[in-house]
């Protein structure tokens, strides 16, 4: 197999016991970019930007949606009222920090932020359709940030 310039680096990281970020087939929070990624396939893809919150990932040859990126998670979380609306989120013991939030909630919040245009509707529909099953819908915000 061909060499990768980071192979030695990742071997050191594995030995150090570092907890890796990321997944395929499940949504995960990227603290370096304050965004959530989901890809349901490991195939080559390109991004189609829908709006300031959502980018759809499309298969490079078939163009079918195979995932998406939700950006600006901190801004979306601020819209959630911890003591108010019934929401799909888990909060910390002090009731101030949201520790987990559902992907569905994030998508709905993001869609609600902008104009209801055909492009946005189509993009968010593609995102909802490429979601994993409900038991993989929750995104852990705390462990990624620690």
């Amino acid at each position: 197999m061909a060499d990768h310039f980071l192979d030695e680096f990742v071997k050191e990281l594995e030995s150090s016991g570092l907890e890796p970020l990321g997944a395929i087939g499940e949504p995960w929070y990227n603290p370096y970019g304050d965004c959530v990624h989901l890809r349901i396939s490991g195939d080559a893809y390109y991004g189609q930007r829908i709006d300031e919150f959502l980018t759809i990932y499309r298969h490079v040859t078939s163009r079918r949606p195979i995932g998406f990126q939700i950006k600006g998670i901190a801004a979306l979380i601020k819209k959630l009222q911890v003591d108010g609306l019934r929401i799909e989120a888990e909060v910390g013991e002090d009731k101030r920090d949201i520790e987990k939030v559902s992907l569905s909630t994030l998508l709905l919040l993001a869609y609600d932020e902008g104009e209801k245009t055909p492009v946005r509707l189509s993009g968010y529909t593609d995102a909802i359709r490429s979601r994993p099953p409900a038991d993989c819908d929750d995104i852990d915000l705390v462990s990624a940030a620690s």
Partner: protein
Amino acid sequence: MTKAYGLEVIDPRNVSGGRTTAWFPGDLTLGFYKHDSLQYWNIITARAVLEEPRVIFEGVREFNTGGWCYVGRPEEWYIRPSVKHPFPDHLVYSVYLNPAMFVYHFRADEADLARPDYPLGWSKRYKGQIWPTIS
């Protein structure tokens, strides 16, 4: 600070000749290695773009301050782990950095057919172009 791999790049805060280090975070890199092989191999593509960008934009997010996007047209990229392929003409490759110079995402994007070195919608999706400088 997590272990990270550093790469020398054009300094986006001083594009008239400055150089600085962009960092591939260790936990993110290890995650790609373990869970997302194709993204791990396209770190090589991201490196090529960081070393030879065509355009650099600033202000990549409406709701997060700062950050940069280095955009390039590499000769090839990875379509399967360890399998290279010529990079498509209708795409560009974008590498996203946060204000601390951590590389947090990289991927192909649709190109603006009128300006093939630029991503589609470039004039509206970033705060502005910082390199090459526009007179």
